[in-house]
């Protein structure tokens, strides 16, 4: 048996669309209970009962991250708080955070999608699953945790970091599956080597799950070679619960996106018109099975495409390609979503440096790094090296507190950073990266 829920995973497209229409109607009725959609639907005369074809989704309004921020925290909530049992939120120190509320049904539905995803990649209840990502508000921790438990494997909620302890856990308990961000696995492998161990010989590992960070197919293959097992791609975003939105099956060719739980559209980010299957555009998603906080036509800003054709695994849920970029300026480094505006906000508060900056994302010694170059103000420089060092540390710490990952800060001469003309490029991405999976908080 290769399916978690055969009756849902191999439905004919016609049957699947029938479920989508029913669930879309239900979702819209539920959404209308929230202050935001309630008012919007009244204004636009949207009546859920009139929906009887999936194409009618195109008549509905889009929802953006800005809408979520503008109506923070409760504007999208459809239920009284007593019915809500969990929230996940982004750090969002620049603006309002993005917060998603879940009721008991939502958490259960998410756990099931996550279990289905893991099962799809080949995880079974006989596995020992070590989840090496941060718990807490980051959805990759609890999202996987509930899915592993629902599937019935033995879960080790290891959390992120401390590679020596991770290796000890793996060896003591015979870990067979791990989930981690791809850049961390390179580091973990180095620690294996430093301890004189070989993961292929000294562990019982049989499968890897990777996500939450951009990586190329080549990086995936390298990780597979290091650990001697297959690595499966995971995709999700916190607005759509987190992980468990789309997942690779044994064929590793695209990620099945669960269409009974999400309505999927790919649109041209400029015209917002749908593009044909196979063409790249922005992924737009509608929740179909969420009660506490349904989202309608949410613009993910992730650029991908629908892979045309059937998958040999027999699942009829369509596959999306790796995320190849963003339609805004957000980037992901070490699993953290970062907007250049956040970095700018930090720098503006430091009088010793100018407002010009350049962010370079690069792979240094096998690890992805964010390098932030800032100009020291001419008049502030007094020849004191210790003072410059102190400033470097101060900027490093403040950026880390803001974006939750430590940058490499470089002070440069005034005037050496190309001056911005209008909306200049502030970010150079030298990681030859195609993005995949960004379910960071």
């Amino acid at each position, binding site marked *: 048996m290769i399916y978690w829920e055969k009756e849902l995973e191999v439905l004919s497209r016609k049957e699947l669309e029938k479920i989508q229409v029913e669930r879309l109607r239900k979702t819209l009725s539920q959404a209308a209970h929230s202050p935001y959609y309630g008012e919007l639907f009244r204004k636009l005369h949207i009546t859920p009962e009139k929906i009887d074809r999936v194409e009618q989704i195109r008549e509905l309004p889009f929802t953006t991250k800005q809408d979520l921020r503008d109506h923070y925290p409760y504007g999208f909530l459809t239920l009284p708080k007593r019915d809500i049992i969990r929230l996940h939120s982004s750090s969002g120190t620049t603006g309002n955070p993005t917060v998603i509320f879940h009721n008991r049904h939502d958490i259960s539905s998410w756990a099931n999608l996550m279990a289905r995803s893991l099962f799809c990649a080949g995880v079974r209840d006989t596995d020992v699953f070590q989840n090496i990502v941060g718990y807490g508000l980051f959805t990759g921790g609890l999202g996987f945790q509930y899915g592993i438990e629902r599937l019935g494997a033995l879960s080790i909620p290891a959390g992120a970091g401390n590679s020596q302890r991770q290796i000890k856990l793996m060896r003591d308990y015979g870990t067979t599956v791990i989930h981690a961000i791809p850049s961390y696995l390179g580091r973990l492998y180095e620690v294996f080597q430093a301890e004189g161990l070989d993961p292929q010989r000294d562990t019982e590992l049989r499968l890897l799950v990777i996500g939450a960070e951009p990586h190329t197919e080549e990086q995936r293959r390298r990780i597979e070679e290091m650990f001697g097992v297959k690595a499966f791609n995971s995709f999700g975003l916190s607005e759509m619960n987190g992980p468990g939105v789309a997942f690779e099956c044994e064929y590793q060719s695209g990620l099945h996106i669960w269409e009974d739980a999400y309505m999927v559209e790919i649109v041209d980010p400029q015209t917002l018109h749908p593009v044909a299957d196979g063409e790249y555009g922005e992924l737009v998603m509608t929740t179909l099975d969420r009660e506490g906080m349904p989202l309608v036509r949410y613009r993910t800003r992730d650029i991908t495409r629908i892979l045309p054709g059937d998958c040999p695994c027999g699942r009829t849920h369509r596959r999306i390609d790796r995320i190849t970029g963003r339609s805004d300026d957000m980037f992901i480094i070490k699993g953290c979503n970062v907007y250049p505006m956040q970095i700018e906000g930090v720098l503006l508060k430091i009088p010793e440096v100018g407002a010009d900056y350049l962010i370079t994302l690069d792979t240094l010694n096998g690890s992805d790094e964010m390098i932030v170059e800032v100009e020291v103000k001419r008049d502030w*420089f007094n*020849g004191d*090296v*210790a003072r*410059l*060092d102190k400033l470097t540390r101060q900027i490093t710490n403040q950026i880390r507190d803001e974006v939750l990952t430590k940058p490499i800060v470089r*002070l*440069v*001469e005034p*005037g050496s950073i190309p001056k911005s003309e209008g909306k200049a490029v502030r970010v150079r991405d030298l990681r030859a990266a195609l993005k995949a999976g960004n379910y960071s908080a």
Partner: protein
Amino acid sequence: MIAKQVSVFLENKSGRLNEVTQILGDAGINISAFSIADTSDFGVLRMIVPDPEKAVEVLRDHDFSVQTTRVILLNSPNQPGSLAATLKILSAENVFLEYLYAFSMNENTAVIVIRPTDIDKCMEVINRNREALESGGSHFQI
């Protein structure tokens, strides 16, 4: 004597030091001594030049971050043990140094460039110990 040292902020980028020396050379400014304090990402070039004001002016004209810093120039005998003798006196009097560097004037004389945390205290200590400094060798000159 107290002199004005010229400090220049430099990125770790090939050719920057060359540019500074070229600019000073073109302006007819001789560099008597220099040292570079560097970290992995940037460096600070420190120079003793005959005309620091002019050096600052030409470098600023070329958009460099330049500052002058007060340092002490101490002539000392160019022979083994004279630097040790100087440092011994300074440390006995609790004078803390941020950095120092030195250059030889000729076979007989070397110049020590000293940047103490408290320049007035350091000068006072040196003046007070003038005799001890001079007894160590032939011609300490402050």
